[in-house]
């Protein structure tokens, strides 16, 4: 069970403290999943980083009773001077896994060719995303945190991610955050909307979808005035 209990996050800005998440709670049982919709800047990535433990909440608790992945997004988790292989070794050492048996899978999945042994700083955006995805598949997690990872990359990459994550690992839990409603409709059994710092849950994915659409039109109307 993963539970987020009354979590708030305040960032210091030049204009004073800014509350990005306000008293957010969430529960996720093993093997279940939830999609979180939110507009750009709604705090989706912040929530994912807090759940992963990369950042700490200003108040509230996060209890992880399963192995939760790091935020699975573009190459956030890489040291730029290290090669792809070095980064694989680093991640494996941190999570206590032998890296050697994983090299073929990562090489094959990322299709990096000789760049697998070149510093990550020379990678393109697409290469970083493929490496990030492959590394998080290499380590066994019970719950994946997916931050719009499916949005970047080409169709072929999407398909391969789909196979790895939603077919081969369909017994795992995941939290997917995105601003694209159709992605959530496609993959998630539950949905919530992050709006004005609060996480609103809905009885069905469709209800969440409708609400999200209404906040979008409301937002558009405000900007027309």
């Amino acid at each position: 069970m993963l539970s987020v209990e009354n979590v708030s996050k305040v960032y210091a800005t030049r204009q004073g403290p800014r509350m990005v998440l306000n008293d957010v709670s969430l529960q996720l049982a093993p093997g279940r999943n939830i999609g979180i919709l939110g507009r750009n800047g709604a705090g989706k990535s912040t929530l994912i980083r807090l759940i992963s433990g990369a950042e700490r909440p200003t108040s509230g608790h996060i209890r992880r009773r399963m192995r939760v992945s790091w935020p699975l997004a573009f190459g956030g988790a890489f040291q730029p001077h290290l090669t792809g292989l070095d980064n694989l070794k680093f991640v494996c050492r941190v999570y206590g896994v032998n890296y050697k048996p994983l090299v073929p899978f990562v090489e094959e999945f990322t299709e990096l060719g000789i760049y697998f042994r070149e510093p990550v700083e020379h990678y393109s955006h697409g290469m970083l995303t493929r490496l990030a995805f492959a590394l998080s598949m290499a380590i066994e997690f019970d719950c994946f945190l997916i931050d719009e990872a499916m949005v970047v990359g080409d169709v072929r990459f999407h398909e391969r991610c789909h196979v790895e994550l939603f077919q081969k690992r369909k017994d795992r839990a995941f939290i997917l955050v995105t601003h694209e409603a159709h992605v959530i409709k496609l993959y998630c059994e539950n949905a919530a909307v992050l709006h004005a710092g609060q996480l609103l849950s809905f009885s069905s994915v469709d209800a969440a979808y409708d609400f999200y659409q209404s906040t979008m039109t409301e937002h558009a109307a405000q900007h027309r005035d």
Partner: protein
Amino acid sequence: MATITDTSFFQRFAIQRRVLHALMMREVITRFGRDNLGVLWLVGEPMIFTLGVATLWTMSGLNHSSGVPIVAIAVTGYSSVLMWRNSASRCGSAIEQNKPLLYHRSVQTIDVFLTRIALEIGGATASFIVLSSFFIYIGWMRAPVDILLVLTGWLMLAWFGASLALLIGGGTALSPIVERIWHPAAYLLFPMSGAAFMVDWLPQNLQRIVLLLPMVHGVEILRQGYFGNVVRSHYDISYMAVSCLVLSLMGLYIVRQAAKRVEF
């Protein structure tokens, strides 16, 4: 505020051991890299400095009448500087250079600092041993008189370096101004640190001032051990220990504050 996971103390210990090992391997790659001769420079840099100082002092005829060989003063002095200056400087940039790795929950801010401190102290120790063995071998230096006292001085300097590094590293993570101040401060501290003089050579009022600096005591202990009773040293190990303790606690507190504010 807390993040709760069901891990026991021993599990956490094992995790931290893994993380420190992973970070150490990562640092070794970039510090002693593939393309440059990093390991060689570990000894090469202090070697050039020592030879330079020895040449300058011999040429200017400033060789002290105290009978203390200048090469030994330079080796013990510069090695001591490496102990506190390098770990602090390397920790200043540590978070910026390793930030992506903090994405992994078990990699904590303090681990990044501890790794760099261990690497710098290890490096300075290796260069000290290699350099003094070399100079002893070619006869420019004598072997240390009291190796236990040398070790005591060295460990005290390591403690001072580590606590200073936590302070500078954590401080820089909170505000980049700390690193800006640290660079000129390090240059100013260098001539006052006892690297190039012994306290006994100074006038008494100046002695009192330099002895306020904890590392001066460390260098004095080190040299007392190295030269024995040929030199007169001035040090107070309890003053240095208390200073290091206070700095350590301040450093740990600042690192804790910095860790709370890690943002991506």
